[in-house]
């Protein structure tokens, strides 16, 4: 910091910031949630160095940095589209400049747990689409598969290269205590958000280079390279030469289009839409300026239902007619494989501890949140009686839509939700309200605690599982709010895993 800036904002400002942090410390006494930066005795270990640096900063400079970050995000176009919101077609996900810091030790535990879980999910998918041992063993009810819309009969008796189904997984994890980590969702279909993980780090490096020379943070920037390697390693067995990889996007109006173009750009592969592709001589090919060119691996960001109008939704303009035949003939790799949704809906979720144990022979390292399946009469009764204390979610819902957060809902909202629940109980599960951990965000008045979750990204290929240290931290910007989804006003933070 240059001397002029120091004197301009004055030391008083820093004292105020400091006071605010102390304030937080006292606030965290007798709290009902876990604060990741502070404990009853002071600043927690992973945040020590950051805290020392932060104490030297002044509010005005940080506020300016925060504005700069927003301008940077806008002009790079890191935006997302909100469905059904015509006025604000493109919005920024607010970025908070205080990093979320995880110790190397904490990360080791977490990543082992994720590794175990994604292996189990892939084994489960292979089993479900082949021998179905887990159903025969009676570990999970047959109906859960047979009645599941995400189960694709087209995948029966088919094995993708290396038996890998979920090449990219974004496991949602929440923390409630020093050693209390829970998996909230497995996101085994087409998880998004990894571009924010990468851009947030890039932004932090630009804004506060001095921090990174002082504090050793594990790198995330290899993700695009690793993703490409992982996709290439998943190419069809009969593929000759270097596999040709593309990213398939629904198009520029999709809410995650920025991420699709970002990933294609970072990997150095083509970004295609359904109408760029067709079946040529039993392969998938893309229309280039010089004619059709065969491709080997598709990282698709199009949902199963829209993938092939000949097999699934006949009205889909986003997919490629006939791609499922090419897929089953082993001439194209689709990542993630069609039909992975059967492993990550919220009803299956409730059986994950059993699933992990069934396929790995080990106890699950990461805990599941206690889940009430409303399809079961006892559970339904309990849920209806305790709606005000529970979070109720649609089995196939995502993005924070269609859910009820009991403790913050009005009487009227609860009553209305009860009706929906009674009308179709099997569509819902309920969980206790978790008191998510908090990490401070930067506000005009200084630091203030907000609830967060974490989505680390795992890459799976026939060569193994690779988990990028860190992930996307989503933060509920509204005081007291537990909903971190960007579509519901959440923001993001850079996530640091320390080198130790």
């Amino acid at each position, binding site marked *: 910091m240059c001397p002029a800036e120091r004197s301009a904002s004055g030391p008083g400002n820093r004292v105020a910031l400091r006071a605010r942090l102390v304030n937080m410390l006292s606030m965290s006494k007798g709290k009902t949630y876990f604060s990741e930066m502070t404990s009853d005795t002071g600043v927690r270990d992973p945040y020590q160095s950051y805290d020392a640096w932060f104490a030297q900063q002044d509010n005005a400079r940080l506020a300016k940095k925060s504005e700069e970050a927003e301008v940077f995000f806008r*002009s*790079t176009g890191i935006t997302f589209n909100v469905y059904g919101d015509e006025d604000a077609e493109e919005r920024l996900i607010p970025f908070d400049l205080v990093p979320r810091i995880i110790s190397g030790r904490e990360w080791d535990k977490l990543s082992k747990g994720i590794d175990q879980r994604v292996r189990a999910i892939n084994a489960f998918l292979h089993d479900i689409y082949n021998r179905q041992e887990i159903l025969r063993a009676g570990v999970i009810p047959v109906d859960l598969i047979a009645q599941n819309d995400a189960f694709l009969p087209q995948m029966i008796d088919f094995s993708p290269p290396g038996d890998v189904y979920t090449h990219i997984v974004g496991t949602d994890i929440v923390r409630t205590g020093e050693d209390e980590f829970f998996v909230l969702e497995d996101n085994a279909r087409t998880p998004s958000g990894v571009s924010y993980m990468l851009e947030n780090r890039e932004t932090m490096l630009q804004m506060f280079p001095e921090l990174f020379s002082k504090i050793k943070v594990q790198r995330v920037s290899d993700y695009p390279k690793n993703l490409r390697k992982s996709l290439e390693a998943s190419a069809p067995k009969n593929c000759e030469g270097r596999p040709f990889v593309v990213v398939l996007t629904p198009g520029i109006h999709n809410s995650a289009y920025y991420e699709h173009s970002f990933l294609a750009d970072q990997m150095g592969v*083509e970004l295609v*839409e359904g*109408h*760029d592709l067709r079946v040529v001589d039993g392969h998938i090919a893309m*229309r*280039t*300026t010089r004619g059709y060119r065969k491709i080997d691996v598709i990282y698709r960001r199009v949902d199963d239902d829209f993938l092939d109008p000949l097999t699934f939704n006949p009205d889909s303009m986003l997919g490629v007619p006939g791609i499922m035949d090419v897929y089953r003939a082993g001439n194209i790799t689709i990542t993630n494989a069609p039909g992975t949704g059967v492993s990550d809906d919220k009803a299956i979720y409730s059986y994950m501890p059993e699933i992990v144990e069934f396929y790995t022979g080990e106890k699950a390292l990461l805990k599941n949140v206690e889940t009430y399946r409303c399809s079961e009469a006892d559970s339904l009764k309990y849920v209806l009686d305790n709606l005000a204390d529970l979070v109720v979610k649609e089995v196939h819902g995502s993005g924070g839509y269609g859910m009820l957060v009991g403790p913050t809902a009005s009487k009227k909202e609860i009553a209305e939700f009860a009706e929906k629940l009674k009308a179709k109980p099997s569509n819902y599960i309920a969980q206790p309200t978790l008191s998510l951990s908090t990490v401070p965000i930067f506000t005009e008045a200084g630091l203030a605690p907000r609830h967060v979750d974490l989505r680390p990204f795992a890459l799976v290929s026939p060569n193994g599982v690779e988990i990028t240290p860190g992930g996307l931290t989503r933060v509920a910007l509204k005081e007291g709010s537990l909903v971190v989804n960007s579509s519901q006003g959440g923001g993001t933070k850079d996530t640091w895993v320390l080198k130790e």
Partner: protein
Amino acid sequence: MLGKTAGGLYWMFRALERAENTARLIEAGFRIALTRSTDPDGEWRSVIITSATQQGYDAKYDGYDSARVTDYLLRDLDNQSSVLSVIKQARDNARLVRTALTTEVWMAVNETWMLLTDVLKEPVPETDLPEVLSIIRQQSALVRGALHGTMLRNDIYDFARLGTFVERADSTARIIDVKYYALLPSPSLVGSRMDNVQWEMLLRSVSAHRSFRWATDGDYASANIADFLILDRRMPRSLAYCAATICENLEYLEEEYGERSESLVLARALRARLRDRDIASIFDEGLHEFLSSVLGDIARIGIQIEQDYRFNE
């Protein structure tokens, strides 16, 4: 490269060129209407005709005046060619071909879109018009600078340039055609005040009133102006210059792809029509007839490029 990407680049740069040309046209109209004309509404009418938006304009408005014409050309989203519309098209195409652009080019386009969306949010009052038009020109220069300074000279660059010059050729031909009568050698009117106004309008529409003076020693004669705008290969908006550049980029593509293209055959034919001849022979052929047939050639080249390089299915 994907055919769609080639198409996205081509249309992105056509749109950017159109934004700039429209701004220049408004600028010329504004200046003439303000300072020279005895028939300002007539000038605004010819601005609308030149921008090829007359049908849409007439359906919406009755009569021509500065406020309505500038609003229609700058901000009206019903007008597919308004600056606001084409900047949005340019930016949508830029998003479509994001992976083919450098960060600099992308950011320049994205910032241009953000800035102009903001500047053109409300109708532009006459006092602000010069500033708004200059912002459009500056942003356009920013994108062009980013393109020249940062992009690889490969097929991506060629499609960007093709878009620019097909659009520019079309625009220049239209500008001359709307005023062709003022360029006809007609002894009775030579040097009259009316001709001078029309000539200035013409030259300003292609930002060439000053370069014309330098290039021709300020010899304002209809033949000189026509020669300058049609045949002079030093003039970056002349038809001959545009045709030569289109050929050049199609030749690069032919070389890179090792495939003959029908569009190059057409472009070479157009270039030949504009080369090695003098303006008198064009007047003999009939200026308006000549321009109409050049406009047809340009349209055919555009369509052929789309087919040759598989922009669409």
